[in-house]
């Protein structure tokens, strides 16, 4: 019973990470740093909530989330690919922009600085261990499928082969007639769509949008991308690991065994350990963060 409860909660916490980390993997494998994941999630959550509110349909809400995430991602892609801006600076700017814009429109549309009215969503009242709620939430299934889809796309399709080539040696890809910028735009747009679905999951689970509701999950997903060495399945396992740590922290909260801040550090601490090369060497895509020279 305890174990089932623990696993159910871990999965529920992991779903937004799975979406966003899948997006992080495709973006970074194409050579663009996934620093904007946090912004895509927040933007996706907001656009999803707005679309869901006005249409009264959660599925149309999802469509709205994807549109919002893709638009933010394209803004990032255009500034970094076409105008060759520094990806770290633009990524941070995208996150700040998403934070400001969602607050602005929250006030404009719903006259609130904190949250939206109740929206149609997928969250179901939790009973027992929570597995029923999981089975009834389509976004959980889509989140798990996203990981499988990403692994298939990256390793089994011509597009995936091109993404891997473009992130590793763009000049080589160009020399065989691949349109490098186009592959990158597609990869970043896909990462925006996926991260936005993760954001929508948060809003739909609570049946409302709350200001800053992504709460750093995009960065944890980026940490999982790196900890998973840019592989969709390993990144998903990292998401589950981080989510399990979070669940543990929530369940131990009453016991006060360790301060919760230490548990919150786990994803970042593990990422630093991974980057330092303690558990096998994490070698990022060679062209990550570099657009110049094309």
């Amino acid at each position, binding site marked *: 019973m305890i174990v089932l409860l623990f696993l159910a909660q871990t999965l529920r916490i992991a779903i937004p990470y799975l979406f966003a980390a899948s997006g992080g993997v495709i973006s970074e494998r194409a050579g663009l740093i996934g620093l904007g994941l946090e912004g895509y999630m927040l933007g996706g959550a907001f656009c999803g909530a707005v679309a869901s509110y006005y249409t009264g349909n959660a599925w149309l809400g999802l469509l709205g989330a994807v549109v919002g995430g893709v638009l933010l991602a394209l803004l990032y892609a255009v500034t970094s690919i076409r105008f060759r801006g520094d990806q770290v600076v633009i990524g941070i700017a995208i996150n700040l922009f998403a934070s400001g814009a969602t607050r602005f429109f929250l006030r404009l549309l719903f006259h609130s600085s904190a949250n939206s009215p109740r929206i149609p969503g997928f969250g179901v009242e939790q009973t027992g261990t929570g597995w029923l709620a999981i089975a009834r939430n389509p976004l959980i299934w889509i989140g798990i499928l996203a990981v499988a889809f990403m692994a298939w796309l990256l390793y089994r399709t011509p597009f995936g082969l*091109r993404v*891997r*080539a473009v992130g590793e*040696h763009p000049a*080589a890809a160009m020399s*065989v*007639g691949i349109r490098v910028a186009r592959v990158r735009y597609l990869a970043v747009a896909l990462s925006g769509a996926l991260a936005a679905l993760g954001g929508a999951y948060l809003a739909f689970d609570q049946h409302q949008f709350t200001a800053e509701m992504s709460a750093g999950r995009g960065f944890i997903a980026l940490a999982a991308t790196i900890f998973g060495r840019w592989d969709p399945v390993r990144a998903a396992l990292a998401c589950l690991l981080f989510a399990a740590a979070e669940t543990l922290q929530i369940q131990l909260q009453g016991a006060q065994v360790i301060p919760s801040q230490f548990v919150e550090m786990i994803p970042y601490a593990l990422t630093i350990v991974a980057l330092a090369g303690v558990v096998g060497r994490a070698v990022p895509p*060679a062209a990550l963060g570099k657009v110049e020279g094309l």
Partner: protein
Amino acid sequence: MSMADATPHSTVPAAVRLTDIHKSFGLVQANRGATLEVARGEIHALVGENGAGKSTLMRVLSGMYTADSGRMEVNGRDVTGWTTADAIDAGVGMVHQHFMLVPTLTVAENVMLGRELTKHGQLDVARAERDVEALSRTTGLAVRPDARVADLSVGEAQRVEILKTLYRGARILILDEPTAVLSPPEIDELWQVLRQMRARGETIVLITHKLDEVMEISDSITVMRHGRTITHMRTADTTPGDIARAMVGRDVQLAKDHVAEERAATPHATDALLDVHDLVVTDARRLTAVDGVSFSIMAGEIFGIAGVEGNGQTELLEALAGLRAARGGTVHIGNAEATDFSVKERGHAGLSHIPEDRHLRGLILDYSVAENLILGQQDRFSRGAQLDHDRIMQNARTQIAEYDIRPADPLLPARALSGGNQQKIVIAREMGRSFQVLLAAQPTRGVDVGAIEFIHARLRRARDAGKAILLVSADLAEILALSDRIAVMYEGKFAAVLPRSEASEEVLGPYMTGAAAEHAA
């Protein structure tokens, strides 16, 4: 000799005809009226000094660059301004000097990249591997289709590059400096493959600046200088001297001529100025790159290290220069035990260093020529905490005159100079100060024939003045032309150390590939 009467078959359209091609990058005019005509089924050498615009012209032909003006014809068809994909479709393939292979992908994946084979929308890797294997057999370019490119040797990687273009149906193959990274046996193998291709009626354009290669393999030659086509000649009707004259625009003394000029004098003293004992160095991946190397260099001696690049030469030099910590062994400079010396302390002990990559270590490209000429020696050119501008400019003017650095403007950023003149800045700085031991790594890489002659003369003069020089070069002809003793480095060890009188390309070649070392073991 004019272009028109050199064209062999006027009835058959030429495989390639480029007319009056212009191409600029910002203010740099890489091609200004370049012309090239290649007959079908010939091996055509495109020669010229570094920066003559050969690679640019061929990138225009392969669709990577679009010419600013000019006309391009392939097999009689006007193809002006086409894209890489168009060029590939029309059977024009280029093997670039820096390999265009994705190291993390397998051979088969690299070969099919951009032309992916699919089954039900998914990559058909198995079929690609079978295709590569079949193509390997017919061409003799042996390589395992499922190997990761990162795990291949340079020679194998080049085979993959050629396979890649052939897989795309290339009938006109352009090779940009293909032998720069190959050992002599690998070069012979490449010539064999190219001759077979010619026998099948395929056309090959070979960019090179090595004249012996031109003489050995090509049917005809186009010489470029300063972005223009200077002349077109039949290989059978010309000599290396003629080609060199056309390349440089004046008479030059070729490195080969020095080989006979064996120095009578023996090294001055018996004192070793550089003594290396059992040196072990690891590379960036923490793998052993230099595996217990020992040698001494006497005053008045040039000690040459030959070998295919990537066999530990870079790490050896970095360890000697103080840029990379040694894992084991000792280094003495003069009488000083210098194993743990910093770069600065090594400089004081009498070490000077011409680094192998002038852009990475030799120069700060955005600094002026004058500033680059005092890099690392700024203490000598300062008064208190301030740089002494007058002395820096005076030094620059002296060095520019002494080393013939062009244009002779001390305030120009180093970036604005040609490769050869950039290298002269490094040479002037490192040889213009007092030193006992000189590490000269690839001192003439990417440098034109005229500057090579000049740099070689400087190295000889330093040797005659009693300096100890360690010469590392990928160019075997250079090693043979300058060295008193020659070591061949293979997989982190010296496979052989020979006096110059016993060394030749034929003798050194097998050591470079490890073939001879295995026999010895």
